[in-house]
């Protein structure tokens, strides 16, 4: 009887311990090195002005682990405090004042005071008049800057100093421990991060890894977080890892070169009408993203349905009935694994209506298949950035003083109508043919916890509430070991 009871109690105890162990394993805890793989291979920890999307996201994400901006934007485009705790502007939107958080230090131990931060901002924006006071920074500009907050939230406005070796020093959750240009970046946890020490002790980022290599590494448990092609995200999920698709934050479009042989607007319109986006999205993109006929995605503007993305080959043929269009060269980014197939499909669609398009990486290009980044949830900012990347003239917005009807879409208070007109104007003449709005995709191994693969993500690693600083690592089931509990002051 007693033996039976003791055996029962022992079994119960074991079960409790096991349960506790399992629970302990899924609770946030410190330690470990997060292994990340990225495609790009930057020679400097810097965001080039016209970085193509993969490189942009990689550098932006990496630097966002090292530094902070004054503010961030959430998926709804609402500004959130970052290094700046509070801010205000005058009615003309020419004078802004930001109150910095107190006690924030750079990785080198120096205070991130207004006096230290102001020069950084001033260097980033020579056209601004940046002044530091005791606990705030004022920014003055000659013209109204109603979208200043959206601008300050962009990764290019990360507040980073440079040490003697040119390495960035910021106030972010991680600091640079080792840097091998184009190969490896080791980040160490910032013990004194103002947002709290990250759970992981270090982040190792390997650069220059192809998506295929990254996928293999993930399968072989040699990487924790990788990039994936958007159409592979579902596949990763099926394989037991987690994947995340951001909101559509990229635009895939056809851009006509200035010297393109397709100068006739009818030819361009015919090409636009010939492209059948649905099979491309369903087959090549595996359902990811959404067909686009506008520059800005619908989640930013809500009016993208006004721009028709429907194919109309009959109309396209009618437009070309009286002409013999020249053969056009279509180029694409060879690093984009989907680009060639999409370009081939576009060429095939064009051929159906009598336009000869040759997909080639050599020779004079008439059209480029291009991905551009929509870096901000603020539509005005993204439209401006997209126009810059696409080589279009900057959108001309009417001067809209604050106080005009707001619909909450635009941070700078511009009306949807202004935005629509600006976008429509940019698309007139078919300088570009928007094709798809695409998300950015990542995948994480089973080792990564606290990395929520939901849809409200902007593809960044320092999003409010969704940051790599907040993930922790667990061992695999086969080698389950006790992990240390979170220390005091944890996130």
């Amino acid at each position, binding site marked *: 009887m007693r033996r039976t009871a003791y055996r029962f109690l022992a079994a119960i105890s074991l079960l409790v311990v096991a349960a506790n162990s399992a629970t302990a394993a899924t609770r946030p805890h410190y330690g470990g090195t997060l292994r990340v793989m990225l495609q790009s291979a930057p020679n400097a920890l810097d965001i080039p002005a016209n970085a193509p999307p993969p490189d942009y996201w990689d550098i932006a994400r990496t630097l966002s682990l090292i530094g902070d901006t004054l503010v961030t934007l959430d998926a709804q485009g609402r500004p959130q405090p970052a290094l700046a705790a509070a801010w205000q502007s005058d009615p003309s939107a020419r004078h802004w004042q930001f109150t910095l958080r107190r006690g924030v230090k750079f990785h080198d131990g120096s205070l991130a005071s207004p006096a230290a931060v102001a020069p950084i901002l001033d260097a980033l924006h020579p056209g601004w008049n940046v002044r530091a006071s005791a606990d705030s920074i004022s920014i003055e500009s000659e013209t109204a800057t109603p979208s200043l907050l959206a601008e300050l939230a962009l990764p290019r406005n990360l507040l980073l100093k440079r040490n003697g070796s040119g390495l960035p020093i910021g106030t972010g959750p991680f600091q640079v421990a080792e840097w091998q240009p184009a190969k490896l970046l080791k980040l160490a946890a910032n013990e004194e991060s103002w947002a709290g020490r990250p759970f992981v002790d270090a982040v190792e980022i390997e650069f220059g890894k192809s998506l295929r290599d990254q996928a293999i590494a993930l399968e072989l448990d040699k990487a924790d977080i990788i990039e994936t092609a958007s*159409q592979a995200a579902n596949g990763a999920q099926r394989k037991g890892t987690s994947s995340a698709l951001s909101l559509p934050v990229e635009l895939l479009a056809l851009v006509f070169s200035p010297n393109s042989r397709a100068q006739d607007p009818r030819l361009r319109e015919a090409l636009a009408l010939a492209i059948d986006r649905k*099979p491309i999205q*369903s*087959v*090549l*993109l*595996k*359902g990811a993203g959404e067909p686009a006929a506008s520059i800005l995605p619908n989640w930013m503007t809500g009016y993208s349905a006004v721009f028709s993305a429907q194919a109309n080959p009959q109309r396209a043929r009618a437009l070309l009935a009286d002409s013999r269009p020249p053969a056009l060269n279509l180029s694409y980014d060879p690093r984009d694994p989907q680009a060639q*197939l*999409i370009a*081939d*499909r*576009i*060429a*095939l669609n064009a051929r159906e209506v009598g336009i000869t398009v*040759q*997909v080639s990486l050599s020779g004079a290009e008439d059209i480029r298949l291009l991905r551009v980044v929509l870096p901000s949830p603020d539509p005005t900012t993204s439209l401006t950035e997209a126009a810059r990347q696409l080589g279009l003239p900057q959108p001309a917005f009417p001067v809209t003083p604050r106080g005009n009807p707001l619909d909450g879409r635009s941070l700078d208070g511009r009306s949807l109508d202004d935005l629509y007109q600006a976008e429509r104007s940019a698309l007139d003449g078919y300088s570009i043919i928007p094709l798809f709005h695409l998300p950015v995709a990542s995948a994480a191994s089973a080792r990564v916890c606290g990395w929520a693969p939901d849809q409200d993500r902007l593809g960044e690693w320092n999003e409010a509430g969704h940051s790599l600083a907040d993930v922790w690592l667990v061992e695999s089931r086969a080698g389950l070991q006790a992990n240390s509990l979170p220390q005091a002051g944890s996130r």
Partner: protein
Amino acid sequence: MSFRKKLLLLFAATVLLCVAVISASVYSTIRRSFERADQDRANAVAAQFRSEFQRRGQEVARKVESVAAGETVQRIALDMNRGAADSGDHVSEARALAGQQQLDFLELVDSRATILSSAQWEAKFGYPEAAVPAAAGTAGAFLKREELPQGATLGLFAVRVARVGEQPLYVIGGERLDQGFLSTLDIPTGTRVLLYQNLDAKWNPKSLLDLNGPAAGVDKIAPLVAKVRDTLQESQGVIRWTSDSADAEVFHAIPLTGPVFNSPNQNSVNQSAPNLNSANQNLTNQSTANQQLLGVLLVGSSRRPLIELQRQVVSTAMLVGGVGILVAVLTSLWFAARVTRPVVSLAEAARRVAAGDLATKVEVESSDELGELAASFNRMTEDLVQQKDRTLQAERVAAWRELARRLAHELKNPLFPLQVTVENLMRAKQKSPEMFEEVFHEGTATLLAEIDNLKTIIGRFSEFSKMPQPQRQPTQVNEVVRSVLRVFHAQLRGNDNDKEKNQISVRTELAEALPEISADPDLLHRALQNLVLNAIDAMPHGGALTIRTATLGDRIEISVSDTGSGLTPEECGRLFTPYYTTKQHGTGLGLAIVQSVVSDHGGKISVASTKEKGTTFRIELPYDFSAFSASLR
């Protein structure tokens, strides 16, 4: 043309003809042989192509069968039938499968004939594939046009079906039919193979492939290809690439056809779509129903060996002909010389005989017909000589007889009165002595007169026998004529009593600027005088006397015409015989003297007469007698 030249030409022509005939027959035989060999080569290459075509088709079918039976296709078919297929998952499958089987083309097509995955054009997913399901029942391979991003091409395809559940999954795969296929053929030396991919509505030179890809400079083949395109029949033609005929090639064009595929919805193509055997037959004549020309196989054979051999034959023939002609010329020269020498000798002898040398003999060198001819000629000349002698002798005898007759006749006349006179004297002496003196005076007078007559007759004969040689000097014949007419002026006027009835009119037609001739004016005067005298004697009742002078090349002509009674041909033939006369009284020496004078001056005299019309004597005298006499020497 001489007999020798004719023989020479005949021999040369014979040799040339023989050489030409032989060369032509050799030339023709060689060409036929080459054409046969060329045809055999083309047939061999075509047969090889058919064999390789069939083999490759079987291989393609096997590979496609392997793909269709493979795990990947089976899985996709299973997903399709379960409704779980995500077309996006299979977009790249075909490329991987094609790579595994080393196929140039591979497509996975669903039951609606929609492409799920295309190896050769990945972006073609969702598009219809016309060859499916029409060709699904085809056991073998078939030719098909395949559209690619960079353009259309030809391929050898096979279709297999993966039946997993109710919805079939079609696998259509193939290999390119291009220069790579041609390189697998074992092509004989001097032959080449081209493949024209009939992918355009019009002739496209870039579609003509050889072992290295698009062939260059081949527009001249376009008409041959066009002919095959129009007729779908095999054809043949000679392509001359340059002006040199040795660079030409004979091309055999063989049509390559494939089935016509309608849209998958219609599916109206014959379910017994052509299998490889039919494709094999497509290489020869076949109905055009449901077939389209997809390519043309061109087998070319160089004509260089034939042309060079022909040239060699021609040059050899010309060389042989030339040598033959040369030999023929030399041979014929020798042979003709041998053959014609006796003929030439005979001809020369005949000329000499014609010139008067009757003693000419021809040497008899052979016993053949020419020898007989020569002997006959010699006999003939001997006969001629003998006959001439006999004739001369006869003429002499006749002339002597004539002379004797004339002498007898001439002498008899004066002798009779002599005899009578002497008899009268004797009678008178005997019977009438008293009248004897008177009779004696009369008789002696008569005797003296007749004796004078005899002396005159004898003097004429003596004069004729002692005709002097001409004393030549430049002589104006017209003056001689005028002087002769002056002599006969009174006689020509006639007696006063019968002036009108017996007057002879004189007409002179003397050539102006008659050149002087080398002649004896006196003898010439005498000859003309005799002719005028004869003319006057021929017109006892009057008439017309015409004297003409004219130039005849290197001679002058003097003609004396009368309108007398004329002469018979027999009389004309004997006129110039001495002592021949038609007059009652005459010695018959006048015309003989004229002939003698004319002959001594190197001329000739002829007579033309018509009875009752008149007579014309023509004398031809050379300008220069010395040249004439030299020619005689």
